[in-house]
Structure formats: structure tokens, C-alpha cells
């Protein structure tokens, strides 16, 4: 990247069920934790990028966060969605630093879907993924949209429900090693298959969890980063892919714009799938994870099920995936979900991931998507430039 940028600090709030703290307070807590991690003061922050809360939205969310925390940023931006937008927001922060809009940017996302969401909001969230005229009336739930994609993959590639189930098995194999994960009990394929049917072929344990919590990172120029922390995490590549918004408009149900997104990121970072030591992927539902493994080039199209079954993504495997536990087990407060993939990547690159620590972590690929495999962003970060 021109004018290289690095991540120098990270922070997280209490995760899981956090009923006593508002989403805005979680946003502030995550920001302060990230500043403390790098040893910067509140007055050092001159850029703030935040993601709005679904359950307690604020029109100028970043500004409200700055007001509450006593920050004085000269650059503020509020993004409205998580998913792939999480990494697009990180890329935007890098551009803001490169352009001189700000020198020290906090990117923060937090929400309280578990403790603060009303029944009406839950309905709105369920319905909001669909087209208000041509999809929503038929009563699809969010899992149902992903189930349409899962079924198409089963039809095209003979993928089995047991193979989808491996996503949760892998997630729990990692989260069992992470004391901060919301769910840590190991599960078997049979446990997943026996869990409550939600939208065929998806069952409860094919679906991500609902959490409270937040995360933040501190970004600055690569030049400054070396003076601020021992192990900066450098942004090496970024890509996007946007194929459609509504799943009924998808040209291809089993191959997503993660292909374009990933290829652009690999090209910019000058690496390929074989160079990736850790992949932090968007596991909102098991088929989403399986398709990303294919579309990002970690296995051939149609072989995602076998790849998961091989144990490659689990501890000791050839491609560790979501070592924190991902959104299937670790923490998924809604929009902020993907940012925990990045805070985990920072810990892995620093060598501070405790029981989950991988032997060698020089290159990490992070991918997130929003909508129904609609809008994709890929970020590649590394221990060196």
C-alpha cells in the first residue's frame, strides 16, 4: 500500500452477556482499552471511525462516542453496517491517515444485541435482510436466506449437512481454548445434526450466537508505528466484491464475490492462499464459512465440505480458522462481529494468544461479508511490511 499504515493497539470490552453497560458505553470502553494497550492518551486520538448500534442507534455515533469519552477528533465517520463494512472501515481509516485527515485513528464497534434488543427490533433485524416488496412478505428469516444458499451448494456439489456441521465443531475446538469465548463446550457433528431445526438444512448449531460486546483498534502510519509498539500489525492488502443486495438477485448462489474481494487483496499484498498462516472468516452461518474457504482459494470450488471435514481449520490443522472461536462461539453482538477477527489476529501476530497461539503467524487473511453473501471485504495483515 502507498503510505503504509499499521495497527498499534487493540482493546475489547467484557464479552458475552453484559447487561449493565449500554452500547455507547461499550464503544467507549473498547476505545479506552485499545488506547491503554498502546500507551496513548485520549488527546492523542484525532480520528474516530465507529459503527452504529442496531439496538440504540445514534445519528452521529462517532461524534457521540467522542463527546462521551472527551476525545477531540478532527476526523469522524460513522458506518451503518458491520459485516464486510468492518474491514472497509479499517481500509478507510488507513486512507484517512495516508491522506492526512488524521494521524491516530481509533476504529471501534460495539453493540448489545443480547441484552438490549427489544422484540420489535429483533423482528426488524430478521426482516431487514430482505426486499420489502418481493422477499419479506413470504416470511424468510435470516437463517432461511442462508439456507437457500446452503441447499444450492448441496444440490451442486453433494455437500452434506454433516459437512456444514463441521463449522461449529471447528469453532468450538478453538473456543474451548479461549476463556473469553461465550460458548466453550466442545460439540460433535452429531450434536449439531441433533440441534433444533431452524431453516432446513440449517439447525441451531449452524447459526452464530447473539452477544454483547465491543472491540477497537488504534491505527497510525507505519513510520510512527515502530516507535509506538514492539510489534505493529501492518496492512498489506485489501479488496472488495459486491455482487448484489438481495439473495433472489444473485447470479450465482454458490460462488460469491469473495472471489473478487480475495483476489484483489492477494494481489495487493503480493501473496496467495498458500502464504496465509491464519484465516479469520465470517462464520455467521456454517454455509457462509464453507463457501468463503472455497472462494478465497483455500480449497477448490465444491470441496469446502471435505476441507472442513479434514480438520484443516482446527487446532493443529494446515489452515487455522477463527482461532478465537468466531461468531459461532466467541462473540457476535451484530455489526461488530468481524472486528473480533482482527483483534484476535493482532494477538496471534504479537504472540500473546495464550493457549490458542499458533507457531508462526506472519500473514493473516481476514474476510467478512454482509447481506446474504452480498457485500464482501478482504484484509491481509502481517507482522512485517
Amino acid at each position, binding site marked *: 500500500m502507498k503510505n503504509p499504515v499499521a495497527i498499534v493497539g487493540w482493546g475489547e470490552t467484557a464479552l458475552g452477556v453484559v447487561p449493565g453497560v449500554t452500547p455507547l458505553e461499550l464503544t467507549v470502553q473498547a476505545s479506552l482499552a485499545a488506547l491503554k494497550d498502546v500507551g496513548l492518551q485520549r488527546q492523542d486520538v484525532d480520528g474516530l471511525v465507529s459503527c452504529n448500534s442496531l439496538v440504540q442507534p445514534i445519528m452521529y455515533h462517532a461524534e457521540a462516542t467522542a463527546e462521551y469519552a472527551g476525545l477531540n477528533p478532527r476526523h469522524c465517520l460513522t458506518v451503518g453496517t458491520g459485516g464486510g463494512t468492518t474491514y472497509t472501515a479499517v481500509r478507510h481509516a488507513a486512507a484517512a491517515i495516508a491522506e492526512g485527515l488524521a494521524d491516530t485513528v481509533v476504529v471501534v464497534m460495539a453493540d448489545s444485541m443480547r441484552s438490549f434488543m427489544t422484540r420489535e427490533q429483533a423482528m426488524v433485524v430478521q*426482516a431487514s435482510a430482505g426486499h420489502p*416488496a*418481493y422477499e419479506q412478505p*413470504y*416470511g424468510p428469516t435470516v*437463517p432461511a436466506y442462508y439456507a*437457500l444458499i446452503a441447499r444450492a451448494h448441496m444440490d451442486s456439489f453433494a455437500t452434506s449437512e454433516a459437512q456444514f456441521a463441521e463449522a461449529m465443531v471447528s469453532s468450538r475446538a478453538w473456543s474451548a481454548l479461549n476463556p473469553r469465548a461465550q460458548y466453550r463446550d466442545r460439540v460433535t457433528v452429531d450434536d449439531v445434526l441433533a440441534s433444533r431445526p431452524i431453516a*432446513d438444512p440449517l439447525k441451531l448449531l449452524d447459526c452464530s450466537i447473539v452477544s454483547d460486546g465491543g472491540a477497537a483498534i488504534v491505527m497510525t502510519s507505519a513510520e510512527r508505528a515502530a516507535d509506538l509498539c514492539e510489534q505493529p500489525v501492518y496492512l498489506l492488502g485489501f479488496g472488495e466484491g459486491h455482487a448484489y443486495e438481495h*439473495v433472489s438477485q444473485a447470479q450465482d448462489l454458490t460462488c460469491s464475490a469473495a472471489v473478487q474481494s480475495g483476489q484483489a487483496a492477494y494481489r495487493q499484498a503480493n501473496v496467495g492462499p498458500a502464504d496465509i498462516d491464519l484465516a479469520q472468516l465470517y462464520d455467521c452461518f456454517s454455509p457462509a464459512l464453507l463457501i468463503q474457504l472455497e472462494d478465497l482459494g483455500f480449497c477448490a470450488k465444491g470441496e469446502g465440505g471435505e476441507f472442513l471435514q479434514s480438520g484443516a481449520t482446527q487446532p493443529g490443522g494446515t489452515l487455522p480458522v477463527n482461532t478465537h472461536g468466531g461468531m459461532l462461539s466467541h462473540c457476535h453482538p451484530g455489526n461488530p462481529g468481524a472486528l473480533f477477527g482482527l483483534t484476535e489476529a493482532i494477538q496471534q501476530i504479537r504472540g500473546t494468544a495464550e493457549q490458542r497461539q499458533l507457531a508462526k503467524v506472519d500473514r493473516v487473511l481476514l474476510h467478512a461479508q454482509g447481506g446474504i453473501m452480498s457485500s464482501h471485504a478482504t484484509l491481509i495483515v502481517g507482522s512485517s511490511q
Partner: protein
Amino acid sequence: MTDRQPTRVAAQQTPLSQPYFDGCNVGELRIQICPGCQHGQFYPRLLCARCGCEELAWQSASGKGKIATYTVVRRALSKAYEAPYVIALVDLDEGVRMMSQVINVNPDTVASGQRVTVCFQQWSEDQAMPVFTLDEQS
């Protein structure tokens, strides 16, 4: 005391989509056809998303098609929807894809590729919506 009947989600309608929803109320599934490139389009738009032509014509579709993919919803969206129900993406013979429900069917017998035909179900007091039933499978 009267129980308020839970209502299903009503389709958001606009002047542009009026011919479509009016069609549903008279038993016609209307789609837009582009006179420029012959592209059939669903959902209705201001322009042909393929060639940009803004003079789109409405055509009554055959209402016949096949299931591209489907799911059986076991946990309903709300009390207004009675699980299990089948949601499908249907490829109409005219070459457009739409989301709908497949009704009057044992959900466990539905499969991708099955032929379906449109029918119209009263969704609210003043609006019918297109849904599909399975053709007799050969």
C-alpha cells in the same frame, strides 16, 4: 374481547410497482420486458438493469417455472407465519427469478428442480400475492 389476528408482512408498494400488484389481484403474474434487449426483469425497476433502457413494457408471465433452491422454515418469522413453510427461489420460464412460497405441499417432499405453477393467495384484505404449487412430477 377479540384476539388481534397477527398479520403477515405486507409488500411495500410504490406507483412504479402498481401494475405488478394490480396483476396479482386479477390473477396475472406481470414482469417487465425490455423492448431494447428483450431482457425479462424481476423485480420491477425504472430501467432495464442490463441495457439501461427506460421504456419498459409489462408482460403477463406464464406463471410456470422450477425451484432453483428452497428452504423449509421450521422457526417462523412471527406468529403470522405458521411453521413449517417452504420458501423457494423460483426460476420462471421467462428467465426471471423470484422469491416465493410453495404451498399445499408436504415440506419433506420438496426438491430443487421441481416444476411449479403460480397461484395467488390473499395476503391481506386488499392484496393477493403470488405463491406456487408443485406440478404433478413426472
